[in-house]
């Protein structure tokens, strides 16, 4: 199966996603330039991390206007699996494909470190290979990852079981101390109502090999492979 890695100007985790899909998972992968208007027959779309357009405006605010985003939306509307990681998550929020917003980290500094997240739901193409309650050790690297949404929105996505990942301690316990950026309800990742579009701030593609300190992220990408191979 084939992963499309969308490249916006300023994307910088594009190569990481490509490497994980192609060289770690052994799947096909192709970069899709943001000016492209075709997904080249991809089965999964990845919006990678980075600083699209320098993030000089709101993060992701310009990238959502890129020509390829029309195709990404059509692909998502047709039920195709789409994952936005970090800046890609921010783009999906700006594009209205996911709900909520990402504010500056509560301590206002960029944060790069390993965190733990708990898998909350497994009926999506990016979590189906994991177990509910499974704790993943994943890196974060962002300045604006503080998930926020209006109380009624949070209530709705909680009710619809759209929160997929929550920041937690190594034992899976959710607490303020284990929440690195101040996200509401410790939300690290969500999906849309149809459950095929997923966004998360941690970087599963950076945690696919033990030589890098964690291979816990593989399950996210392998889930997509499993979901589509069935």
């Amino acid at each position, binding site marked *: 199966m084939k992963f499309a890695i969308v490249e916006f100007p300023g994307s910088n985790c594009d190569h990481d996603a490509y490497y994980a899909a192609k060289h770690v998972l052994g799947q096909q992968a192709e970069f899709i330039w943001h000016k492209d208007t075709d997904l080249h027959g991809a089965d999964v779309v990845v919006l990678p991390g980075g600083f699209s357009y320098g993030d000089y405006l709101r993060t992701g605010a310009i990238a959502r206007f890129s020509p390829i985003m029309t195709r990404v939306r059509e692909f998502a509307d047709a039920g195709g699996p789409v994952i936005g990681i970090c800046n890609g998550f921010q783009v999906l929020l700006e594009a209205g494909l996911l709900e909520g917003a990402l504010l500056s980290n509560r301590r206002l500094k960029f944060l790069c470190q390993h965190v733990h997240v708990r898998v909350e739901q497994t009926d999506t193409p990016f979590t189906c290979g994991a177990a509910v309650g499974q704790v993943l050790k994943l890196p974060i690297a962002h300045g604006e990852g503080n998930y926020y949404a209006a109380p009624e929105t949070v209530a709705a996505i909680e009710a619809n079981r759209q929160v997929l990942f929550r920041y937690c301690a190594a034992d899976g316990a959710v607490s303020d101390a284990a929440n690195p950026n101040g996200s509401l309800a410790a939300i690290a990742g969500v999906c849309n109502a149809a459950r095929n579009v997923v966004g998360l701030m941690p970087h599963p593609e950076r945690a696919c090999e033990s030589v*890098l300190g964690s291979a816990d992220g593989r399950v996210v990408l392998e889930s997509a492979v499993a979901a589509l191979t069935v």
Partner: protein
Amino acid sequence: MSIDQTTIDEHGLNADEYQRLLEILGREPTMTELGIFSVMWSEHCSYKSSRLHLRRLPTEGPRVVQGPGENAGAVDIGDGLTAVFKIESHNHPSFIEPYQGAATGVGGIIRDIFTMGARPIALLNSLRFGTLDDPATRRLVDGVVAGIAGYGNSIGIPTLGGEIAFEPSYAGNPLVNVFCLGVAKADQLAKGVASGAGNPVYYVGAKTGRDGIHGATMASAEFDEHSAEKRPAVQVGDPFMEKLLLEACLEVMQTGALVGIQDMGAAGLTCSTSEMGARGDVGIEIDVSLVPQRETGMTPYEIMLSESQERMLLVARQGREAEVEQVFEKWDLHAVRIGEVRDDGRLRIRDHDEVVAEIPNRQLADRAPLYNRSTERPAYLAQAQQLDVAALAAPAALSGTWLDLLRAPVIASKRWVYRQYDHMVRTNTVVLPGLGAGVVRVKGTGRALAFSVDGNGRYCYLDPAEGGRLAVAEAARNVACAGAVPIGATNCLNFGNPERPEIMWQFAQAVDGIAEACRALGIPITGGNVSLYNETDGQAIYPTPVLGVVGLIDDATRVLTRVFPAVGLEIVLLGDAAGELGGSEYLTLAHGLVGGRPAAVDLDRERALQTLLVDVARDGLIGSAHDCAEGGFAVTLAECCVESGGVGARVELSGPGGPDDRFLLVRALFGEAPSRVVVSALPGTRDRLLARARALSVPATVIGHTGGERLAISVAGVGVADIGLVEAEQAWANGLTRYFEAAVA
């Protein structure tokens, strides 16, 4: 128009230099020409005070693919690949405007690396500030760290940490040295050389503004209370633009349509046009009216001297212009043809049809001033070195001193700093910051590169030659502790005003020390940077050479860190039992003194130790390795335990006499000396480890075991220092952070 003496003075040219200019031109210069000579012959661009000395550095070796003289050096790492790396300073701009000064320093060194055709894969930095009790220093630190993070994170090159120290000597003149490492195919290295008359010269990247005019001249003068007024000479960085340039340049190099490429760093368009021409022994003619400009009404002088960031100069092959232009169009960059290569050897600058400068290229480069400045041993040295450390009172409670050292900002955890840096992007980071040398794997090869930047201003202040040797030895040792063979080095030489004989003496001594150590350890210097005039109000910084050493590991899965990996392992000290207190962190912390002499390095033994480390790491005999640096053995032992997940240590030292010899005890615990490394032997390997050490004549002593919840040191069976692991971790974790997080809360 005639140039008056005031104008010449303002351009920093002395009478001899101006006379030389007149000889080269055979007439009075135009203003643009005066500006060009001024920046090209500034200390920053011409190395006029340092060149003579730099010749003594060893620059050749079997692995050297590119030595000094290009944008960066390159060494062979096998599989047809080269490691391309360099270190550079951005001290003066960072003092004036910390965020942008540091950010553009990062941008500049990254351009140097990708200009060589290399994909940048890691950054490090070496920082020096005043002490943190001063709010002005904290603001500087905050700004510099944020600037480094802002640029590196956005462009997507991991910053793996580096080193940071705090010392009153740097209060008025902080040091911001940045190191970048890239990887390139050996047969695809690009050069900053122009050739082929008629080949088009392209300008690409950000537009030219009035920012940074005379930045190179600023970096070649001392600071005084008016320095803040120089803010317009600091540039503003745009990492997004540089990201586009990086990708586009690497892509355009693949077409084979390029002849040469150079970034516009210090002295901007002037330096890139004249250097590319001089290297290829050709002329370059450009029309400044074609240069994309951000502001209106810019004069040719301003355009030639602007140091606007994120700009590149390219020479393409005639007839293949479309290929070059297409790549840049893809990235929404516009390659603008501003001139072409000529065979007349002249740098000719036109403004439309008017020639505003015409200079023989080679002479501008070759006849740059070269000074053999006078040197004199500084008066302070004799007294500073005389300090009788044995006469100083030893602390009553060694455990308390141990904790105080762990709390010292220079020793404490730098997590507050490095977690602001994206250190994992590009998925090559094998060793996270704070655990030892930076280590990145080289995808597709199974190998890894380790690198470290080190320098100790105190040691150099007390003995510049020894300080130079120690800096090389430490950087190489850190790399060897990761299991890597040191294969190349770059240096950043930060000193005061070279026109003062005592500063020049420090410089010459330090270069001698570096050269000697590099020769002895077989590590060639492939390039670097000199930063002089690091003075404020006549007060020079400590002489601070910073060495960046790159090492190669054949098996990326055999990389070691400082952390004890398990309980129940035998701890082995490689090297002498005690260090010296001269120039030590202990001396400053406990007695408020900087004096005595640093321990001398025995380069033969250092080389043997590094050979041993690489051998036993490769063969899986040891589980961790950490060298004894600031704070001595006790601090090193604690650093092997913190962040280990609760592994303590109990050791017995037999070397330093009895438990009642307080001076020897302090030397054993807190004394500093090179060629000392604490390793943990993996189960069943101790005898082989000791045999290997014996074969290489490296002293090796089994001193204890890992495990327990305490860090305990005894001598002749009597406990002399004992702290709880949790207590140690807290002291160490908060020592630096406490100065910053309180303000944020």
